[in-house]
């Protein structure tokens, strides 16, 4: 600022256009020192605990319960009791009102949740404020409306609730994934035992206060925190009728194996390695924005991230040049700063995984580019990264990195783009950039992926079904299709 007020002259152009810090206030969040398990509408003291931290500073935030097999059993019993004692027989129009209430309370307390989400998960406040929270509230609002209209969604099928749903969610969109799971489950008349991710339990625990304000009957939603052991206990519990899991493909496969022959309903939303395909006739600047949004949104902690850029050879050089220049303007740092574009990596473990895969990229012969940026000393950070000279066989072109790391490959013809894009065991999402309408539809038809973004990327909406092909899982979340996993049909 001093440069602007030179005495005796007109304001000079500052030599350095940096942003002043613009931190969002943390005052809106009131954390407790410790949280129990939310079972049957009450807070139960866990036998074991662990500490949850802010990944941006490694500062401890609260002590969290590690739910045991017995705790999970208590939660399932509470959910079963609530299911039998009225929730499942409540008229749909009454269930709807609870969900509408939850949506409204989330809107009212949106800032509090957004700050807490960024604090506990490391994502930029502008994302938790403008994406996670509005979408979470919208999801409850959308499914609230379905609760008394299920017969119209599934004519002649006599839809009925499944029973108790066990839900296991990831750490990349903690509250939003909770909304994706709980809203359709309750709308269909089920009760829920939900396990948040180990590293990001706080917004799910704060959500219990929303349930209190909404006066949701006790036991309809139970929240059990903990690590993989808690998740395993939930998967293996005989009293659970349906499992919904979002997370890694490895864990998804283990769950599918575990449930083999059990007759339990299962939906899996697993990993991805999406191709973002850029043709030479695209609107180049928009495509660059789409690529950046595709892979650096939420630090690349996105299962549908556009982690493989397929650039048409004829546009490769200007595209990569523009992309690198754009990367220099990304602001990496404090998740609570309103100007931050890329926040903290969610955990030490995830950072280690990203580093290991990036190292493999170097070793296999890819060329790495990282813009100059100063990373904070404390906390878990990784600079936005682009790999060029990537061969299809490299691990960075095959494996999900789940970090801010883009692998650039090239193609010449639309056929080759399809061949390369589909050359993956995953099939969650894909992107296409071209101004030619017929080519968009041709590509969209052939891409083996559950979501295709054409001339856009990473868009989400409660009315839009989301889910994978192949090893990216099965079942859809969102839209009318997102109801089906939570219903059985007396046809």
């Amino acid at each position, binding site marked *: 600022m001093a440069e602007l007020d030179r005495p005796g002259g007109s304001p000079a152009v500052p030599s350095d256009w940096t942003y002043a810090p613009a931190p969002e206030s943390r005052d809106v969040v009131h954390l407790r020192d410790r949280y129990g398990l939310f079972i049957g509408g009450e807070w139960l003291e866990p036998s074991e605990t662990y500490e949850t931290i802010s990944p941006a500073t490694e500062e401890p935030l609260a002590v969290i319960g590690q739910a045991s097999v017995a705790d999970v059993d208590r939660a399932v019993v509470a959910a079963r009791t609530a299911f039998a004692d009225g929730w499942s027989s409540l008229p749909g129009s009454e269930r709807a009102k609870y969900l509408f209430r939850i949506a409204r309370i989330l809107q009212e307390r949106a800032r509090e949740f957004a700050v807490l989400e960024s604090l506990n998960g490391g994502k930029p406040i502008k994302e938790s404020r403008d994406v996670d929270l509005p979408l979470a509230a919208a999801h409850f609002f959308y499914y609230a409306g379905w609760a008394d209209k299920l017969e119209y969604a599934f004519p002649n099928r006599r839809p009925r609730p499944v029973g108790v749903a066990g839900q296991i969610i990831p750490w990349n969109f903690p509250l939003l994934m909770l909304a994706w799971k709980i809203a359709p489950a309750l709308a269909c008349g089920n009760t829920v035992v939900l396990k948040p991710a180990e590293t990001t339990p706080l917004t799910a625990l704060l959500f219990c206060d929303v349930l209190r304000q909404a006066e949701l009957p006790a036991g309809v939603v139970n929240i059990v925190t903990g690590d993989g052991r808690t998740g395993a206990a939930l998967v293996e519990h005989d009293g659970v009728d349906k499992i919904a899991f979002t997370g890694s493909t490895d864990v998804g496969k283990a769950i599918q194996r575990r449930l*083999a022959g059990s007759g339990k309903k299962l939906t899996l939303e697993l990993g991805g390695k999406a191709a973002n395909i850029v043709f030479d006739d695209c609107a180049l600047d928009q495509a660059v924005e789409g690529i950046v949004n595709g892979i650096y949104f939420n630090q690349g902690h996105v299962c549908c991230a556009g982690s493989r850029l397929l650039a048409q050879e004829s546009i490769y050089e200007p595209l990569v040049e523009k992309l690198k220049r754009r990367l220099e303007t990304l602001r990496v740092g404090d998740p609570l700063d309103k100007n931050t574009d890329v926040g903290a990596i969610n955990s030490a473990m995830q950072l280690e995984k990203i580093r290991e895969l990036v190292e493999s990229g170097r070793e296999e012969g890819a060329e790495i580019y990282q813009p100059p940026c100063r990373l904070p000393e404390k906390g878990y950070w990784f600079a936005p990264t682009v790999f060029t000279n990537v061969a299809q066989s490299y691990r960075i072109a095959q494996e999900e990195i789940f970090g801010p790391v883009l692998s650039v490959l090239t193609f010449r013809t639309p056929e080759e783009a399809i061949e390369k894009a589909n050359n993956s*065991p995953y099939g969650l999402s894909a992107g296409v950039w071209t101004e030619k309408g017929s080519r968009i539809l041709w590509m969209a038809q052939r891409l083996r992926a559950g*979501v*295709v*973004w054409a001339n856009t990327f990473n868009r989400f909406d409660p009315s*839009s079904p989301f889910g994978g092909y192949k*090893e990216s*899982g099965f079942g*859809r979340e969102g839209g009318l*299709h997102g109801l089906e996993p939570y219903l059985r049909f007396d046809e």
Partner: protein
Amino acid sequence: MTRLPIKKTYKLFVGGAFPRSESGRTYEAEGQNVARASRKDVRDAVRAARAAQPGWAGATAYNRGQVLYRLAEMVEARIPEFAELCSGRDEVERSIDRVVWYAGWADKLPQVLGGANPVAGPYFNFTIPEPTGVVAVLAPDEPPLLGLVTRLLPPLVGGNAVVAVASEQRPLAAIELAEAIATSDLPGGVVNLLTGFRSELAPVLASHMDVNALDLGAANGAAAELEQLAAENVKRIVHGGVDVQSPWEIASFLELKTVWHPIGQ
């Protein structure tokens, strides 16, 4: 002098052709020597199915409906032969009617199962059903014809290619059906029928990495083991009924694809 009849050699149906098992093995069923397919025959059948699937899925829905309708025509023309290989004329007629019923679904599925989604933003967004790919079917033992038709048509009408294991005890109706399929304009490889021992073939199909979905209709108690094998590439598992007829049967072999595009000037 009475004429000595020509007896049929019962073979597999793979890639539109009628090969023997590469293993050279047969087993006796319904008084006939029937090919006993091997692991390698499964491999060949999956390869044929994978090769044929894009063309079948890429045909227009109207065309797929007509081809399946023609399958009904081909069976209708051989009702007496089929009747001898199953419980009788009634089972054949019900099978034919079921084929016709499913044929009519080909060009109606996207409107019933998909649609436009009213997203909160300037985007056009739609969801359409697409075939999951290669489907493995364990056909029920009984009824030998209707059971197979019931499990075969749902994946087919949606644009999948199928590798089916016929009823082990009563495989002749399946082979007869293969002959009808071969003259129905269904492209070679879209349906592949294997005869043999289910306990030998089912685990190979369940663990095959290029099979996308597994219909356990006739797993008979082996379902848990097969489902475990199927998890290796996250196969879609279907517990198919023996005598059901519903568009939701088709839907269980379909993926849903959602496409977004901005709206602007």
